[in-house]
Each structure stands twice: as C-alpha cells, then as structure tokens.
C-alpha cells in the first residue's frame, strides 16, 4: 500500500502567542515548534496499517517553513519511510496548503491508497485541509475519526460528532482519514529510530515546484490582536467551612441579579 500522512508544524500548546509588528501573523522568532498534536494519531495509524500490510510504504508530507523541521523528523523517527517538505511561509491559507500537498503527492510518483491527516491544526484552527485535499484529489474523506478497522481494500471508520455520538462509515480505498485524539496511542520515537531517521530520504520542494503561487491565496488575515482582557472579577475566600453557605448563596445571587445568566 502507498500510505501518505500529511503533518503540520505548529507552536507548542503552552506557547504564549503574540501578534507580529504589522499584525499580519504571530511573532514566530522564539517559538518552540512541535508536530500538530492531532497529526501524531495520523502517523501512528499509518504505521499500524503498514505493519499489517507487508510491502507498504509510509510517506509523510509537510508544507511550511524550514526554521525547524521537528514535525518531519519526529514522523521519520517514529517509523515513516520517507518525507517530502514543501518550503513555504507558516501563514499559507488552507487552499494553498491543500494544493501544495496535492502537488507533493503527485510528485512522489506514488498513487495514494490512503491518506491520514490530523482532524485540525491547532494554529489557525481552520479544519479545511483534509476535506479540501480530498476534494482536489477526487477522493472520499471521513473526518474526526476515533475508530479505524481496515485493510488495503476497505475500512470501517468511526467519526465523532456532537455529544460524543459516532457515525460509522464504510469506505473503500482510496480514502482520506482525518484523525482525532482517542484513535490510538502514538508511539514515542526510539533512540535507534531517531538515528535511522537521519538516513531516510527527505525531498525538498518549493511552492513553485508543486504549482502554487501567490494567486492561490483565498483567505487574507490582518489586524492580529490579543483578545480584550477582562476586568478583574470578584474573589471570595471560602476555605473556612462556616462561611461557605453564605458565600455560595452570594455568588448565586450575583449570577442571577448582576450577571443575569441564570
């Protein structure tokens, strides 16, 4: 099987994000980059599927800047066979990234049987690339997947929707699967894995190589700003048990009469 995984490199979740000077993106100079957390489930599922189907290869693709290549190195160290990096800015929109990924997959010379992605990237939170890429490749897609049973021909997928309900899909390959937390437990890269990763093939492409130009931009951002700070609230010390009933009654009164939310 030709298994593909698309990953994104994003700021660590503990990052304090600040807008850049012209308000067109965030300040990226001192950020710790990680593989998008949902993409780890995608890499793991790809590796599980490879193990179950002898002779399969896992190709991992990423579009973004080269100031750090943490995401691809992690995927290779976990066990992916080869990587493709399309160099571009970190603030490309979903359409440009999808088109670049499509180009990268086509350049690899392999026809994908299955493509795994995370359900969303936790930087721009657009949740568009999986479905958009599938549409561009004329492939069906299932997103927010928390259950996968399948082989090289077909798969049964569980998609999580509101209230934790599950939609169960039956699909035949090729298909794109966008993975959610809960699907599997991603492995850690082992030390031999990390050493081996250094010798695995990594192909570098430019946006031009995959047919993407500035004209492909569909979404324009400006005026990045921190959300307004709330004025300080009221704080009550209720460590003393004797005061608890009185304080809780007061807060409930405030919720009803001052905040008017109950």
């Amino acid at each position: 099987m030709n298994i593909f995984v698309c990953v994104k490199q994003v700021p660590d979740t503990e990052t304090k994000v600040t807008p850049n000077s012209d308000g067109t993106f965030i300040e990226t100079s001192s950020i710790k980059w990680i593989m998008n957390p949902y993409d780890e489930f995608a890499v793991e599922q790809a590796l599980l599927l490879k193990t179950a189907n002898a002779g399969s290869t896992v190709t991992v693709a990423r579009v973004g800047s080269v100031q750090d290549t943490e995401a691809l190195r992690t995927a290779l160290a976990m066990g992916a066979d080869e990587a493709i990096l399309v160099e571009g800015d970190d603030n490309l929109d979903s359409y440009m990234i999808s088109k670049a990924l499509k180009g990268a997959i086509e350049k690899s010379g392999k026809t994908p049987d299955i493509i795994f992605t995370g359900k969303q990237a936790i930087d721009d939170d657009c949740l568009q690339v999986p479905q958009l890429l599938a549409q561009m490749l004329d492939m069906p897609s299932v997103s927010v997947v928390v259950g996968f049973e399948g082989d090289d021909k077909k798969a049964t997928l569980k998609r999580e929707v509101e209230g934790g309900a599950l939609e169960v899909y039956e699909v035949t390959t090729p298909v794109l699967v966008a993975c959610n937390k809960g699907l599997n437990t991603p492995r850690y890269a082992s030390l031999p894995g990390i050493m081996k990763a250094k010798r695995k093939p990594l192909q570098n492409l430019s946006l031009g190589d995959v047919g993407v130009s500035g004209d492909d931009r569909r979404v324009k951002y400006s005026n990045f700003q921190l959300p307004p700070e709330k004025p300080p609230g009221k704080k009550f010390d209720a460590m003393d048990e004797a005061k608890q009933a009185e304080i809780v009654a007061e807060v409930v009164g405030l919720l009803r009469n001052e905040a008017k939310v109950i």
Partner: protein
Amino acid sequence: MAKVLVYTEVHDGNAKSVTLEILGKLAGQEIDVACIGDISDGGITALAEHGAGNIHKINGAGLEKYSPEGYSKAIKTIIDKGGYDYVFAGSTSLGKDLFPRLAGMFDAGMATEVTNFLFEGDNFNGTRPLFAGKVLAKVEIQGPKPHFVTVRPNALGMPESKTAGAGKVNEESVDIGEIRAAIKEIVKGASEKVDLTEANIIISGGRAMKNAENFKILNECAEVIGATVGASRAAVDSGFAPHAMQVGQTGKTVAPSLYIACGISGAIQHLAGMRTSKVIVAINTDPDAPIFTKADYGIVGDLFKIVPILTEEFKKIM
C-alpha cells in the same frame, strides 16, 4: 447588496439556532436558505420571520443520512442555480466537515468559525479566533465566488429585532449519484445533552476531581441548571472523562453564557478554549491558580464542599 445562501441543519423539524443568529446578522442582504431533510411549517415560519427570501428544501435518494459527498453535491445544485456571492453555515460537526469540500468544488475560499462579521458594501469582513482564541484576527476572502463562511454557534447571539423575508418554499429534487463514504449506522453518545460547543451553560472538572466517579457531583449540578459537563485536558489524560468532553486547545473551544470551572488550575491551553465565555465562575483551593485571572466570580475553596452547596442554591431559584 450581496446575494447570500445560508445552509441550515434541521433538528426535530426546526432550523438550528445558529442559523437564526446568522440570518439576523445578515439583515440588509438578499438572503435565501437551503436545507436537507424535513423541516416543519413552524421551522419555515421562523426562517421567514428572520429574513429568508427563498427556502430551498432539497430531497433526493441517498440524502436520508449525511455524507460529505452527497450533501456537497446537493447544495452545489442550489448554488449553481442561484448565483450566490456568499454561502454561510453554522460551524457545527456537520458544517465543519461539509463546507471545506463544498468550497473546494468551486476552487473558492472559506473563512472557518467566525465569531463576528459585517458587510462593507458587498464585501464580507469577519473576525475569527486563531490559536484556540489566544489571538483574534480580521479575515477577508478573495478569489472565485461564492465565498464560504462558517459561524461559531452562540457567538453572534439572537437578533434583537427581526426583518422578515418572503419565505417562499422551493422544493428541489437532486440526483447525487454514487456516494463512496456513507454512514452505515449511528451509535448514540453517552450524553443526550446539548454538545459543549452549543451549550449555554457548562460546568467543567479538572484534575482535582480525583476520579471519574466524582464527576457525578458535576452531573447533579448540571441537571439543575441545564448545563453540559466538560473536563480539562488533565482530567481527560488522567482517564476521568472521555476526550469528547475536553475543553481547550486540543479539545473543544466553547463560548457559553456561563462557564463554571471546578478544580481546574487554568493551563494556558485550557484558558484559550473557554476564555470567550460570557461569565466565568472558578472554584479552586489554590488562591493563586491562573483560572482566577479569567474568572468573574472566584471561590477559593474545596470543590467537593462548594459544588454540592451550589447545586442546592441553584435548586432554590430554578
């Protein structure tokens, strides 16, 4: 004036409330609505009262259940006939899955989950949170039309005044052809409650809940005030609650009227996911917990003592 199509999901015969929020905000534009499935007469009246001109009711074999391919082909038929400038939907599970594919069919741009917007002439100008709400940005769409937009439920609020539309119903039969990824069955979730992303009130527990059983005190309180129960990443990673309940950057971003955080310290990735809640109550034994910096009302105390008293107080006034 822009020509806008709003796609609405139908739930128990009625349009989802986010649709009415969107229609209210679109007042002044030429608005049509499209839906798939059986909408009641009452549902149609509500759409008309909120400004719907034409209401396209789409039917066809294979549309009984949701599928990204089937629904996108069905709505494309309406867009092709109507020549719309913009297509809107709520940013729900279905909206998030469907709209990128639909936008892809037109090679068009899409703004995901805006929390506010306005029109400058015919041009859309939206606001959306990025990095789970750590920053806000202005978003505009360029390139081929129509442009696609999804809107976060509860963010706009219900319109204060309504501008009625004609509400003319148009039955549309479509042939969606073969569907490659189709739903075989739907397994109901543990919770019958409103989803976190659409909830008006949320009560969440953190690591201090100590175990899964203890969430019953939150459930009891939730029952009284009609809340949905959530959890922090620490509680989910400790196995106290399923990931579907997680609020934060790697869980759900929520915007209820009231958010009650119990035993949650307030890690940056949790705050990002709930800071836009209208009113925040925090209960924590640590007076220096970061959650108190975001709380409108902070109670420094033991949640196992405070929450049961809170439940009793709510019972008195509900």
